[in-house]
């Protein structure tokens, strides 16, 4: 019996694998700032940590509990506000607390508000839940502009993280120190949230997602399961908010806004809500997309929209699912056969995207930056937005790319299909054995 089960699940095995994964995660957190050490690089990394915690906490609701929330920013945001107020207290000397613990204040605030709001929201599920969170989110946001005492009005609340006594020379002035603080929190929070998925409550949360009715008949109160999970998610959301407060040293109303909540949803999904590590990818992408993409191109919103359209259509499990599908293929030792197709597919995609992006960039250039004449720099290439040659070239590249893509895609799909069929058969045989 033991042999069959372990062959059935080639992925879950051995603790060395787990150590390896967590070890490299920690290592990555430690060395990252040495690779991307510029001012922007550091803030981007810091925000990735923050976003990872936020997306993971969001996924406790979406992926693990089946709760589609449109208002998660309420908890990250209110956590931020409480944290910055606490920071200011510390600065004033009205409160004694090491700055490194401020995020916990944010966490407790997130938890507190989750206790409060969660009580009404989690009594319902499905669309009703989603709509209540939407309404609550809008309410909190609208109120934030109307109540300057707490939210600081339009200018928000700012603080100075170099408050209190430095501890072992750590003042949190330099971004690098803040980054490491965030890194520590990120590691711990990710570990804790992972641990949560392996606890009775975490498992019952999955059960509630799958079939709330049946849960009631095995002794659990679904509302309470949802509520508790919501509170825990609120706590981690608050920590993420608290870290953001330290990172930016200012908190404005936008942090509770619908756009932020929407971003959590979108990127969690894009990363992959069905796997624990999906939202980590989502968080990283969120920061990349919102900060770097918009600096790279003026058409960032269009790209973002298109990425979503195509990702949801062709990879509804998110990037994590794509990865796991390939891991499965690899586990059955079949990934090798695909490398050729992958390379071809990749090349074709690059060509196609290059052409398409060149077209988009030229269109935007024509509309937005006529100042610099018709020339634009596209990945080191000079294009002439008013010249025939550039247009014909771009269209040609895009068309050729598309043709190649279709060709390689078909070939790839066939191979992929054949391999999947083989794997299914292998599994069947094992089950039958």
């Amino acid at each position, binding site marked *: 019996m033991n042999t069959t089960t372990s062959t059935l699940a080639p992925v879950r095995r051995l603790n060395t694998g787990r150590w390896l994964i967590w070890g490299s995660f920690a290592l990555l957190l430690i060395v990252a700032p040495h690779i991307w050490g510029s001012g922007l690089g550091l803030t981007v990394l810091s925000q990735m940590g923050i976003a990872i915690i936020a997306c993971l906490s969001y996924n406790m609701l979406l992926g693990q509990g089946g709760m589609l929330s449109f208002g998660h920013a309420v908890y990250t945001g209110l956590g931020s506000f409480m944290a910055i107020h606490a920071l200011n207290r510390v600065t004033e000397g009205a409160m004694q607390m090491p700055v490194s613990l401020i995020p916990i204040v944010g966490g407790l605030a997130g938890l507190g508000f989750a206790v409060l709001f969660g009580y009404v929201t989690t009594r319902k599920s499905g669309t009703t839940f989603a709509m209540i969170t939407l309404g609550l989110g809008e309410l909190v946001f609208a109120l934030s502009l109307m109540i300057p005492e707490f939210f600081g009005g339009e200018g928000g609340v700012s603080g100075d993280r170099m408050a209190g006594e430095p501890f072992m020379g750590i003042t949190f002035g330099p971004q690098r120190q803040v980054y490491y603080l965030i890194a520590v929190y990120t590691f711990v929070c990710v570990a804790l949230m992972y641990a949560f998925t392996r606890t009775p409550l975490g498992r019952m949360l999955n059960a509630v997602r799958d079939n709330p009715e049946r849960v009631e008949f095995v002794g659990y109160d679904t509302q309470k399961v949802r509520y508790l999970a919501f509170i825990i998610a609120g706590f981690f959301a608050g920590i993420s908010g608290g870290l953001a407060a330290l990172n930016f040293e200012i908190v404005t109303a936008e942090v509770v806004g619908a756009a932020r909540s929407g971003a959590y949803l979108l990127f969690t999904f894009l990363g992959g809500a069905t796997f624990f590590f999906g939202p980590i990818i989502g968080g990283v992408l969120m920061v990349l997309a919102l900060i770097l993409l918009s600096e790279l191109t003026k058409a960032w919103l269009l790209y973002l929209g298109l990425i979503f359209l195509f990702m949801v259509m062709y990879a509804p499990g998110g990037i994590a699912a794509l990865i796991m599908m390939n891991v499965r293929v690899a586990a059955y030792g079949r990934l090798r056969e695909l490398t050729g197709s992958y390379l071809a597919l990749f090349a074709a995609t690059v060509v196609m995207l290059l052409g398409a992006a060149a077209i988009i960039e030229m269109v935007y250039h024509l509309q937005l930056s006529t100042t610099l004449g018709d020339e634009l720099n596209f990945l080191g290439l000079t294009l002439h937005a008013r010249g025939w040659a550039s247009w014909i070239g771009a269209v040609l590249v895009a068309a050729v790319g598309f043709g190649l893509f279709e060709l390689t895609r078909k070939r790839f799909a066939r191979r992929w*299909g054949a391999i*999947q*069929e083989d794997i*299914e*058969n292998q599994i*069947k045989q094992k089950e039958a054995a």
Partner: protein
Amino acid sequence: MLKIENLHAYYGKSHVLHGVDFEVRAGEIVALLGRNGSGRSTTAKAVMGLVDCEGSVSWKGQEIVGRKAYEVAHLGLGYVPENRDIFPTLTVHQNLMLGQKGTGKGSRWGFEDMYTMFPRLKERQHTEAGVLSGGEQQMLTLCRTLMGDPDLIIIDEPTEGLAPKIVELVAEYLQALKARGISVLLIEQKLTIAMRISDRALVMGHGSIVFDGTPEQLKADPAVRKEWLEV
């Protein structure tokens, strides 16, 4: 009337039917028997165009593999799925209404026929179908398909969850259908009923037909019954 040749069907990548061949002639009740998971429901779905399949299914001389389910239905094939698949948010009457094709004019069956067949449904006609009892739901799916006025009706486990008395009733109605010239492909677990009312019995095993003959022949063949039906 319905002729199936070398039919293969797949769920995603898993191969479920491995070359099914049989025929249903006009005005015939054919029972399709077999163990759980032998592929009987899949055969029904394949005919209706609800799963990916290869091979040939010809209906009244027309090839229908690759057709969409609604096209197949318009050609006069009716299908009663196994999981009941009633529409829970619609009332009983609305469920029946959806069975009609067009306005339902020219159909052999109307609402009243159904309600006289199962008075229970008439009593519940304005109730949401989702709250019907298991058996009531079973009656409803059968009637819903009949409303579409099919020439051949494929019924997947019609007697599941029905009280013995109603099972009898269903058996009678299937015979009545036959009397009206409607062919029936009956997928059944309850051997006794199946054997009693059908003209021919097919036995399926591991995705292909392993026996094709009259009920009497099947009764006389303990090997098949032992191996493929375990009785």
